């Protein structure tokens, strides 16, 4: 069946939302009209550009760039700290507006939504509806969006990436050769920094060239990802718009440390601190994890990751922490570190628990301990009970876990 899919993308989301908030609270300048960025906290070394205004873009400031280099490019740059709770509010407002048009709204990331309009426009054309959505966002919510219209999610997403801001674009299959194929191949969804050099080597520079390349050749060089890209370049994508909370596949947490960590003791404390929050969230969702992964980044920004499947799924902080410690010890070469992450995946429900000869009573006792700590933290704040190891360590007893509901872009449509 022919579908009509919309992709709604907020223009410079974090910055727009900050600007709207500021204007509503009496600011006289619209941040969107001056060079400004939303950036992380430099003191704790999170200082990168998270979002930028269009005037800032003219200074060649890029998302992900470190703040000091952005300031070099534009000395008058206004830097705002991020406020995630505001962004979640704004994102919810957008979703609610979209739901007036169709129940099939999928929040793809904090500032992007897909919606399936098939059969939901009675008196208007799809383009008119899309236009109305775009106008209402600006008028009612105060921020601008780009709307892409097509017959599947991929093309709709590509369409909304065209000219910005506050624009509506169509990219129907018959428009692919004219609108999609001339674009450089790096603009294609999922053609990332690892893939691009491979494609360049194969003399593929535009999406059109990729669309006309032999799938067998692509598969040989890029495995199944090659086929996916070839399909995308040809505008083929059948994934449905899936509303509601998606099934959680994994829970993770990571943090950049305010100082370089060069000893095991502090590294372990960071791992414990991350595990505390991750395991708490896991228990909150009523789940257990089978796979534990630890990621680290050293001061050269090299990235390492190591994971292991557990003999039995668990949601116990100590058990998961011990596994994280072991993984870390096996992986770490001794170089100073600035970033830690703990991720849990292969989640299962906690209704059943395989008992083991080694830890029968112990497991039950640890479970009830976890439960009591969770209850205290929920009613009296997360700092109400902390582990003694963190006293005077300068390391927060619970790390991360603020903006968990909206992971960054998924690699799956």
């Amino acid at each position, binding site marked *: 069946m022919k579908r009509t899919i919309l992709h709604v993308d907020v223009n410079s989301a974090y910055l727009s939302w900050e600007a709207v908030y500021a204007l509503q609270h009496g600011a006289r300048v619209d941040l969107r009209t001056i060079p400004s960025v939303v950036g992380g906290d430099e003191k704790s070394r999170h200082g990168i550009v998270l979002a930028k205004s269009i005037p800032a873009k003219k200074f060649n400031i890029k998302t992900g760039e470190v703040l000091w280099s952005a300031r070099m490019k534009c000395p008058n740059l206004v830097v705002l700290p991020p406020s995630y709770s505001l962004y979640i509010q704004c994102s919810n407002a957008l979703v609610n507006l979209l739901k007036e048009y169709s129940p099939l709204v999928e929040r793809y990331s904090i500032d992007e939504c897909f919606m399936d309009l098939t059969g939901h426009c009675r008196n208007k054309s799809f383009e008119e509806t899309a236009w109305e959505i775009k106008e209402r966002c600006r008028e009612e919510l105060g921020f601008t969006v780009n709307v892409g219209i097509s017959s599947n999610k991929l093309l709709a997403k590509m369409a909304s990436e065209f000219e910005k801001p506050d624009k509506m674009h169509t990219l129907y299959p018959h428009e692919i050769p004219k609108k999609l194929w001339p674009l450089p191949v790096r603009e294609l969804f999922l053609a990332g920094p690892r893939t691009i050099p491979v494609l360049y080597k194969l003399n593929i520079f535009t999406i059109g060239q990729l669309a006309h390349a032999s799938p067998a050749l692509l598969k040989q060089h890029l495995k199944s990802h090659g086929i996916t890209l070839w399909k995308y370049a040809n505008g083929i994508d059948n994934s449905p718009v899936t509303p509601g909370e998606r099934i959680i596949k994994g829970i993770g947490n990571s943090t950049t440390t305010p100082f370089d960590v060069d000893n095991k003791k502090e590294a372990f404390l960071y791992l414990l601190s991350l595990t505390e929050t991750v395991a708490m969230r896991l228990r909150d969702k009523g789940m257990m994890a089978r796979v534990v992964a630890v990621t680290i980044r050293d001061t050269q920004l090299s990235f390492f990751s190591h994971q292991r499947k557990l*003999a*039995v*799924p668990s949601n116990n902080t100590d058990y998961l922490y011990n596994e994280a410690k072991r993984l870390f010890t096996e992986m770490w070469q001794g170089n100073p570190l600035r970033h830690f992450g703990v991720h849990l995946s*292969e989640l*299962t*429900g*906690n*209704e*059943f*628990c*395989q*008992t*083991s*000869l*080694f830890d029968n009573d112990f497991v039950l006792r640890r479970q009830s301990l976890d439960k009591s700590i969770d209850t205290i933290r929920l009613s009296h704040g997360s700092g109400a009970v902390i582990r003694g190891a963190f006293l005077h360590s300068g390391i927060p007893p619970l790390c991360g876990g603020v903006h968990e509901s909206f992971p960054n872009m998924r690699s799956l449509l």
Partner: protein
Amino acid sequence: MKFVCSKHELYEAISTVQKAVMPKATLPILEGIYIEADENVRLVGNCFDLGIEFSVKADVMSAGSIVLNSRIFGDIVRKLPESEVFFEVKKNYNTVIECGNSYFEIKGMSAEGFPMLPEIEEEKKVSIAQMSLKEMIKKTIYAISTDENRKILTGSLIEVQDGEFTIVSLDGFRLALAKALIKEAVEFNAVIPGKNLNEIHKIMEQKEDEVKITLSENQALFEMNGCRIISKLLSGEFMNYKYFIPEQFETEITVDTREFINSIERASLITSDDRRFPVKLMISDDKMIVTSSAEIGISKEELKVEMDGLDITIGFNPRYLLDSLKVIDDEMIRVSFSSSVGPCVIKPIEGDRFIFMVLPVRMNS
């Protein structure tokens, strides 16, 4: 060195000793099979964890020894026609293999420097019928742990005491034990790596012929029909398994093995393995209800059992139960439950030729 032997026997010897040859080694000689002609022909493969020596009947014309690459030697002999094989080592270790109308000449290596199997002459010796040991390994090997963090459990314990020969494997979630009687009055304990035990199991035949086991400090020697197998032992103390096997039970049933297997297999059809949905057993009034429920639906069936003790409801990972039940040949078995969260013990109706223990799944809801 020169000899003639049958292709069939030579290939059997090669494929047996190949189990102990490293496919990739740092030294080429370690990827080889040692061949020695004396009165008979002897083939040896040795990867230090496991060493196998196999004798082949042959007509030896001149004695000598050589090492040939295991893969190429094996591939050649496997493809030869079923006939007499003529084997000769010429100058510079060039080796001729001739059979029917085919002729091969391959480069060998000097046998010097090949790690020969150590001689084990110890007092601690025990003999047991091959088919009996083979059966005991089959009954216990599936319960070996794969967890490298508890290395000792990646092997099986062989325990000889008071005229009993016992093999025990356990991985924390289940335990399997098989027992046989022997004549010797010796005592020994050894933990054989599961991987090696598996190879030994394959090499042994369904025969009354005995296998002789000799134990040294860190190695065990298995001798049978012209074959010597040396396995290293896992070091460390095996779990005190007896401590784990309960003796007091709340509920005991006698059940038909085949029927029990079938009903668990049917129940596990709808429980997908990755979510580890358990199979639930509800026992009361000489009946056992086997049920399962997963996202896709539920299943339920009733089995007649003979029952003693209290009513009980208990959940298990169906795979763990099936692994044990499937190696049982007895028509009827005795299943005992210590409690709804404690281990369950499966035994023959009489005696204790085997004891299987499975830990349940605790159901939180």
